[in-house]
């Protein structure tokens, strides 16, 4: 594979990322799946990078899941988006920092629709005014939070305590990057590096010392797909998509997977357990899976954040082998302890090996 041509493509898709003053738009599901990620983003932005980010308690879900499941019409969707923009306007912010890839796609879709069909924007303004009495300015910039971390990746590298180097071998860790479909496949120009060879996550991996794994099914869907997982009868399709990716990446022996979409991170993490149960197959060394991290978790690890503060203990695939490869200093005894040492409870199956075989393990 020729890197030079990739770099040329990346240069074709430059995107303006603001340097400061962001209005944070959270994800509705990330705090359940990866509870430390959004907190880590705010900590990194505020404490490590000294940036101004407003985390407004009044904003809501983007309603993207309902929209993509055909439960909610576009009129409602764009009015909800308009309300978020109104809150931004009232707070004096012009730069949206969007936590979720689905939301990023939603806000991009709404804004692009308004460019093509100004009557839709007029309709949203009218509906919002009637419902809430609010008005709004269109954001000057909408960036996904992975764009923002990418933008500051070298600053993070300058302050990193750890790097993506295997402490046992001295070689770069091999990291799979998986980009959420709604990040750049809908609007390639809105993603860093475009849709086919997005560089938003690979740029972070390389800046922090790792090696990007480019495997044949790199662009394939993670299996999330709203209609696939929301309907129970379709979940086999979801897991089979994830399996296709794991089978494709397995020969490259990746040390970790990082994602910028909540759904991708969740399914690539949790389906490894399901595949382990269904087929007895794991994709990491021995009985291990391949740890799946969000980009905020990875950035936090690089900066020396405690892995348990980042929420790595609630991942399905055990992250401890990865922490050991990176050389992260951590206290295993604190893994399932909450604030003030409160016991969070230990999961019965902490990793993704086959349950039937677990039963014969003594102890």
């Amino acid at each position, binding site marked *: *594979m*020729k890197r030079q*041509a*990739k770099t*040329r*493509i990346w240069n074709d898709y430059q995107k303006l990322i603001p340097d400061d003053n962001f209005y944070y738009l959270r994800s509705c599901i990330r705090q359940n799946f990866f509870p430390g990620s959004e907190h880590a983003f705010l900590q990194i932005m505020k404490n490590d990078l000294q940036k101004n980010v407003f985390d407004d308690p009044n904003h809501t879900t983007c309603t993207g899941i309902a929209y993509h499941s055909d439960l909610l019409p576009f009129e409602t969707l764009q009015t909800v988006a308009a309300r978020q923009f109104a809150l931004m306007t009232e707070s004096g912010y012009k730069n949206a920092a969007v936590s979720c890839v689905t939301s990023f796609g939603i806000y991009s879709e709404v804004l692009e629709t308004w460019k093509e069909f100004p009557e839709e924007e007029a309709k949203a303004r009218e509906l919002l005014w009637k419902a809430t009495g609010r008005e709004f300015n269109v954001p000057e910039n909408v960036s996904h939070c992975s764009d923002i971390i990418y933008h500051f990746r070298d600053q993070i590298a300058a302050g990193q305590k750890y790097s993506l180097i295997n402490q046992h071998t001295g070689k770069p860790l091999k990291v799979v990057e998986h980009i959420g479909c709604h990040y750049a496949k809908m609007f390639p120009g809105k993603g860093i590096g*475009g*849709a*086919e*060879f997005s560089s938003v996550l690979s740029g972070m991996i390389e800046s922090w010392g790792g090696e990007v794994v*480019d*495997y*044949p*099914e*790199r*662009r394939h869907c993670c299996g999330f797909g709203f209609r696939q997982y929301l309907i129970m009868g379709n979940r086999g399709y979801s897991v089979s998509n994830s399996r296709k990716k794991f089978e494709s990446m397995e*020969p*490259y022996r990746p040390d970790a997977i990082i994602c910028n979409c909540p759904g991708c991170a969740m399914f690539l993490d949790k389906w490894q357990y399901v595949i382990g149960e269904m087929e007895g197959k794991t994709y990491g060394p021995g009985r291990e899976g391949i740890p799946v991290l969000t980009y905020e978790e990875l950035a936090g690890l690089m900066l020396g954040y405690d892995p348990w503060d980042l929420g790595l203990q609630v991942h399905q695939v055990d992250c401890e082998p990865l922490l050991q490869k990176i050389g992260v200093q951590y206290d295993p005894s604190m893994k399932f302890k909450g604030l003030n040492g409160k016991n969070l409870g230990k999961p019965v199956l902490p990793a993704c090996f086959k349950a039937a075989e677990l039963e014969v393990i003594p102890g």
Partner: protein
Amino acid sequence: MDQQKKIITIGGGIAGTEVSSVLSSLGYDVIMLEKSNQTGGKLNNWNHLFPNGRPANEVTGFLRQKIQLQPFRIISNTSVSRVISANGIFALETTAGQQLQANAVIISTGFETFDATRKEEYGYSIYENVITSVDLEEIFKKGKTPLTSRGENPKRIAFIHCVGSRDEKSGHHHCSKVCCITGVKQAIEIAKQLPDAEIFCFYMDLRMFGLSYESLYREAQEKYNIQFIRGRLSEASENQDESLLIKAEDTLSGRPLKMNVDLMVLLVGMIPGKETSGMAALFGLEREPNGFLSVRDLHLNKNRSSLEGVFLAGTCIGPMTVDETLENARAAALDVHQYLQRTKR
């Protein structure tokens, strides 16, 4: 014949050479400007022509012979940088600073092939074993057999039709016309070189419009066992061994298709080149939505541009085969001749 009438042809490919030769033989004072150092254009890089496998250098050689028999002035490594027209006279300044005058100008700046790197999902110039039809023809011209990046004979080869043609994503809605039959021709040539290789052509439609094209297509299937799959490629990825994993939908069987191939050939389309768009800007000529130069009347005046005294020849108008290009150039010559006969200046 009025010996004083001067004609400038911009572009010395096969259309420019043919139109200049014909007008020179009619007694006009012709100057042909060519941006490179030789006449013949892109045909110089082509090995064999469809549908009969004729060596391309026979055609370029024939055109060079015509120049020798009926000489006209050729200024190489030159294009036009400035144009002023008044009272039916065109004053041109070349990129070399020469001042030229003409009673009529013929634009024959031709086409460019689509830049396959723009179809990012196919990985041209990123993956080791993706080449274009132009690259393949250069390999043939050197007398070589296409090999994989590891120097081995490819066992399975895929031709991808309509790369940069009939493609909304790349902004080129038009059919490039010649790629279907080029794909068939090149697939047969590889099959002759590598009889054990499996060869697949992924197509949307096969437009076998020309004389003998359909029989060549049948021959490809019946004699050379080339398989034609109706389905557009969605993406290609590189495997660890640098072979390619390609995905398409077989729209005849209605099923998605995934296969590994050792070599992929992208049949790149024809687009108006920078030279053509540059001349359009310089002369203020109208262009079609696809970027090619607009003709005065599609049926009755195909060689006249939107500007009086400026004529068009060859593929600056749109995709054409070699024989169509030469016919079009001869028609342009006749049209210029009739125009100059009528004008008294």
